[in-house]
Structure formats: structure tokens, C-alpha cells
């Protein structure tokens, strides 16, 4: 299990059983963050990565979030996994409205976060256009690690009560990776030219 770590919490050691004092809302937050019931609203290719996240190799059960509930009335965390088309928007909205408070929403993948490259008549460009969203996990699809970053971010937000939307930052900026790639490719070309010139006298 987790630990009570708020500054407002005092753990007293020494007695035989030990006890802790806390505030009710902190205790509730602590209990909630380790027992998230998921509603996976899986619509597109990101669903494959969702399966990876939920299966034993990555295993989000480690975070107390293993129980999928296919009834929105029993769930706390709505995973919006994949592209939301305009036609589907009323359904998503209704699923969200049926969930009991307190509830959290995670936009899984670029499509759910911002519409991604679907910039046209079909797609809702970001689920926050129709429902509130707590966490954005960018990536097409995001790596399971990014999803766990998002899940832990949600847990933090549950304990702190902060409902400001948050974004999972990429661990490596893909733009820098591209720059590096290009530099190394150019380097290799230069290298190749030099190599050939060096060889010529020997031939």
C-alpha cells in the first residue's frame, strides 16, 4: 500500500499498533488514488497501447487501477483512448455525465488531446471541447511509460485536489532527436566522402 505523505499528516510511532492523524479529505484522496475504477472508452488505434498498458508486461494494476468498469456509473476515471469523431461526441458526453463525482478524465494519445492530424470535418479536435479533461498524454500512440506518468500525475492530483489540466511531457523532445538524426546523417555523408577520397590513392 501507499503512504500518507501530506505535510498535514502526522504518523506517530512507538505504540504497539501505531496510528496516524489526518484530515478526512486527505484520507479519502489517499484511498481514492489507489483504487481507481477505469472506464476505458476505446475508439481507435491507441487501444492497442491501452491493451499493452493493462496487460501483465506493463500492468497498471500496480497502481491500483486494474478494475475496468464498463458501466460509467461505477467508475472514477474515464480513459478516452483514441479518436473521437463528431458523430461519437454525444456518446462520450453522455458517458461522462453518467459518471458519479468525483471523476477524472484522461486524454490518451494525441487524437484525444488535440485531434492530432485529423484536422477536418470528422473529428472533435480534443475532447476538452466537449468534456473537462484532467490529464493529456500526448503520443501517437503514447508509450506505456508516458501513460504511467499520466496515471501518477492523476494520483498526485487526486491527493492534492488540484483540478488544473496537466500534460505529460515527453521524456525526449522528438524535435531534438530529429535534429540529432539529421546531423548524424550529414556527418555520415561527409564521413563517406572523406573515406572515399582517402581510399583513392591506394586503388
Amino acid at each position: 500500500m501507499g503512504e500518507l505523505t501530506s505535510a498535514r499528516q502526522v504518523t506517530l510511532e512507538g505504540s504497539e499498533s501505531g496510528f496516524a492523524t489526518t484530515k478526512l479529505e486527505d484520507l479519502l484522496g489517499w484511498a481514492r488514488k489507489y483504487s481507481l475504477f477505469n472506464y476505458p472508452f476505446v475508439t481507435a488505434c491507441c487501444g492497442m497501447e491501452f491493451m499493452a498498458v493493462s496487460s501483465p508486461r506493463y500492468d497498471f494494476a500496480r497502481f491500483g487501477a486494474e478494475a475496468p468498469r464498463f458501466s460509467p456509473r461505477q467508475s472514477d476515471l474515464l480513459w478516452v483512448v483514441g479518436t473521437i469523431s463528431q458523430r461519437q461526441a454525444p456518446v462520450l458526453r453522455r458517458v461522462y455525465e453518467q459518471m458519479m463525482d468525483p471523476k477524472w478524465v484522461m486524454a490518451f494519445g494525441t487524437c484525444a488531446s488535440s485531434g492530432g492530424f485529423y484536422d477536418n470535418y470528422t473529428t472533435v479536435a480534443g475532447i476538452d471541447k466537449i468534456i473537462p479533461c484532467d490529464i493529456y498524454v500526448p503520443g501517437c500512440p503514447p508509450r506505456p511509460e508516458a501513460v504511467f506518468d499520466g496515471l501518477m500525475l492523476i494520483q498526485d492530483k487526486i491527493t492534492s485536489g488540484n483540478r488544473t489540466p496537466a500534460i505529460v511531457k515527453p521524456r525526449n523532445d522528438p524535435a531534438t532527436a530529429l535534429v540529432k538524426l539529421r546531423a548524424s546523417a550529414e556527418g555520415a555523408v561527409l564521413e563517406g566522402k572523406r573515406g572515399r577520397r582517402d581510399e583513392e590513392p591506394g586503388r
Partner: protein
Amino acid sequence: MSKLVLDKLKEKFGSDVLETHDQFGDDTAVVAPRAWKAACEFLRSDPALDFNLFVDLCGVDYPERSPRFEVVLHVYSVSKRHRIRLKARVGDAEGDEAELDSVASVWIGANWFERETFDMMGVVFKGHPDLRRILMYPEFEGHPLRRDYPAQKTQPLVAYRTEEEAGLAVDKVAPFGLDEGMSFGRRILQAKDN
């Protein structure tokens, strides 16, 4: 490929076969809209042709041409192992009067493809058993794959939240900055221009 199919079509329909070619081995015939259904029935029922497998039906919009739309049908014969592409040109510059006979009664597989072509292009298939939109919702206005449909125009079914309601910028580019993630896409390019 086989010249037989094109020859038989020309022989049967004469001047209603507007043009034919077999570039890249794909036999293609453009037929007059009034001969569309008769040609399809002929392809299906003639024992030497025997086109028994419906492959595809779609529409193409050429705004600069008149007639404006081209309806393209692909069929294949499993027994004779030949295929043909059949085209018909319909519709005026405004996109009206784009009408063609339905061939859903000839190949049952054409049913949903004609609905899709109707939905995306606005070509009306006369005699279709159930010509409704198939991909877009009934409230949708216009036909999204026509070239004059604005590329970024959306018709939301759920009213979008306002910025006050959401407490953050709702109309955003990808939420992780311009230089990260996908750098293509119209909105990002526009943001870079500004």
C-alpha cells in the same frame, strides 16, 4: 488484358460507351449515365462475362469538368478471372442533378457503397432501397468530400465548451508545443505563419 469485355460492351451499347482504354492493364469503359444500369446488368448476366463479384464503387469530384462527378465501379469475375472499371459522369457545376441508377439490385454489395458515395459526394442513386447517409450523421449538411466543402468546417453535434467554462484555451494546437510531436497539420502551419 482481355479485350473481350470492352469489345462486347461496345458491340452491345454502341455510342453509349463514350470512351474506353486499357492503360496499365486495367480495362476501363466510360458509359453514358442512361446506359449505366443496363450495362451493369449485361456485365453480370452475360455468360461470357459473368461479373459476379462486386469490388468497389466510389465517386470522384472534378470541379473544373462538366459533368462534374465521376462514379467509378469496379467488378470482377471469379469464374472468368477478369475485371473491369466502369465509369459514368454526372452532375452540373453546382453539383445538382447528379443522379444515376442504383445497381444495388444487380450486385447487393453495391448498397452501402452507393450510400457512401451519396453521403460523401451527393450523388443520388435512383431506385436505391435505402439511400441514407452512412458515415456522417443525419444532421450533417452538405457533402464533405466535394471539393467546395471547406476543409476545416466542422458541424459539431455537441456544442463546444466556451473558454470560460473550460478555464483554458479550447481552440489549441497540439497541447505539447509547436516543436514537439507532429509538426504537420494545417493549424500548426498557420500558427507558425502568424
